[in-house]
């Protein structure tokens, strides 16, 4: 046993200081597609929509929009039309309080909806303070989102330092992390878990599959995202999201961070 005590001291502290201090790995993470900063005027905008395997790109009245909640990070649009699309950079800033907020540039009417959602969430998270218990349910993921959530328990991300704990029982849970495209087989167990949690509770749809169903949106075996089964409070894009992205969404859920990334208290 003394062997492991000594081994535990190797490498010193490997834990990130994020969000108190910036972390380069969080900032360098390659996220969903976005519009290029000064997008070249698309000559034939109708071709753009055909680029995307999940229909994340829409063109209305000449305005090109990317739905990051549908983006599976394949990068085809960035590779084919680099003048119009680019990778987004950074693991944070991908958690939205409304589904529409993941569509960029934002639709004109969403601002009021976001304010309302923020007020609703703030009212509930006020009661959670700084100790939060999290329950995870897999509703048909490909398995990668589970790895990224598990990573949060490891020494590098170590969510315990922020007062966040994974709990086995929904009865102890404040936050529900849902992964997967919403397989029909998991609709019942997911709903039961949600109902078993005490109020107030916050639901986070973790990853593009959970937000929109990803590539399996049109499968008759999924509900095309988990929003059809439980009311989602925070929509997190990414396929899968980075552990930093999941951590960011958790901290927004507990009111530690505002959705714009600023410390709220």
């Amino acid at each position, binding site marked *: 046993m003394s062997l492991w005590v000594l081994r535990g001291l190797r490498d010193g502290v490997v834990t990130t200081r994020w969000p108190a201090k910036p972390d380069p790995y969080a900032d360098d993470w390659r996220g969903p597609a976005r519009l290029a900063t000064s997008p070249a005027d698309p000559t034939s905008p109708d071709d753009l929509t055909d680029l995307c395997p999940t229909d994340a790109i829409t063109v209305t009245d000449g305005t090109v929009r990317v739905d990051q909640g549908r983006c599976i990070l394949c990068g085809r649009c960035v590779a084919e039309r680099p003048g119009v699309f680019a990778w987004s950079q950074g693991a944070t800033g991908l958690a939205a309080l409304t589904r529409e907020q993941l569509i960029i540039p934002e639709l004109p009417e969403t601002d009021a909806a976001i304010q309302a959602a923020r007020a609703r969430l703030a009212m509930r998270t006020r009661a959670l303070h700084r100790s939060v218990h999290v329950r995870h349910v897999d509703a048909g993921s490909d398995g990668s989102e589970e790895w990224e959530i598990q990573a949060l328990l490891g020494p590098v991300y170590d969510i315990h330092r922020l007062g966040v704990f994974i709990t086995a029982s929904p009865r102890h849970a404040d936050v529900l992390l849902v992964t997967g495209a919403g*397989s029909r087989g998991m609709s019942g167990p997911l709903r039961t878990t949600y109902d078993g949690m005490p109020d107030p509770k916050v639901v986070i749809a973790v990853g593009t599959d959970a937000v929109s169903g990803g590539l399996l949106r049109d499968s008759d075996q999924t509900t095309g995202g988990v929003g059809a089964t439980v009311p989602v409070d925070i929509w997190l894009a990414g396929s899968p999201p980075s552990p930093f992205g999941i951590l960011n969404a958790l901290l927004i859920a507990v009111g530690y961070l505002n959705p714009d990334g600023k410390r709220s208290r």
Partner: protein
Amino acid sequence: MTMITQPDVPALWHELESRVAAGHRFAGLFAARAADHNLVTLSAHLAVKGEGEVGGGVDTLQVTLPLGATRYPALTPRLGAAFWYERVIHDQFGLVPEGHPRLAPLIRPGQPLPRHVEGYGMFTIPHGPVRSGVLESIEYLVETPGEAIPHLNMRVFYKHRGVEPRFTGLALPDGVLLAERAEGIASVAHALAFCHAAERIAGCTPPAAAALVRVLHAELERIANHLDVAVRLADAAGLAVATARLALHKERVMRLISRMCGSRFGRGVVVPGGVTALPRLSPADLRAELDKLVTQVTAEATALMATSSFLDRLRGTGPLTPERARTHGALGPIGKAAGFADDNRLTRPYDAYPDLAVPPARAHAAGDAMARLRVRWEEVESSFGLLRLAADQLAERVGDQLRVRCEPADGRALGWAEAPQGEVLYDLSLAGGQIARCHPRSASFHNLVLMHEVFAGDILTDFPFIEASFGLSVAGVAL
């Protein structure tokens, strides 16, 4: 690869049985309905045993059922490995395999089965589908009189996403994306198996530099997966420091992968005809990173395998008999640990493996959780060796072509790759440049059914060790 058409089902089963007895490996049984008519075809895949270490390809034996057939004589009573395959066929087509021992829905929802073991004090502990940690959804029904586990039932349908029908109608580039997401923790292996099938139809060979890049990603994926299993085993034993240390190394491997290609799971690298780009890391930087990693991982593995309180939990736990491993054709580390090694990198080599000399697996026969972990450490060691070789060879090929044209129109072929869990097999049919049908078969699907049979002498507290030591992904089971 040869396609052999048989006149009727009994003839097919007879041929299959005799070839399995001759040392070939049963690799899957699928049904498909032809697009233009209602005839259903059964295809059985056999991994051919070759001369010496190098095996043959994978043969397909197939039979077309008579029009309107609703039943056929089951294969399972003759070859137990078909147990789950025939249940899936029943789920998908309503075909009844006559004589199947336990024909209940597998990937479609169904009522729990009556208890298998009856007797005084017997009860069932349902475990799942919502698990107690951050795990994939599956339900285990543990039949127990208190401590021993005379029987285990598994219900895997909860995660069924309908991946297989979703392939139909996709273009090849979209097919790769779906393959990468069939079993997310083995993205590279699934993409490879899919692309190998497409490349076989097109008759093209990826350039040498692309083959090396593919090996780099496949081997890093293997190391990450094996470390994940080690993390879960250490966690099950309550070794907090070992769990943290191993999780740290796994994170380092995943960060290395993301430095190479932008994705922590190696996605978007493998495409039909080659790879999209060279690693963004220079070969010298990659070598330096690998050298650092190999020292750290080896030291941790050595320490773990010298911790007796940990090893006590693994020794003799969840044993799979060599006989059962052979008749089932157990894949990957589970097979190797029970003396049945058929590593596709060695026996049916692809990409750069023929030139890299994959070391043959060391002989194991215990088949227990301990042997499975030993196999994983040996694979990690050989993976680091392959990575170094591939990185060195790639350094001499910077600037080479990375992709050839691969636009097949029509045809059917099999593609395979050795995932960390074992062989991944793709049966791909193209028509008019689109996917007419694609049947992925993960090692997780083929191997998980063996969990029914490894609880001899084990008790409830051994369960997490056995589950972790299998190292499978439920996503790949209930596609």
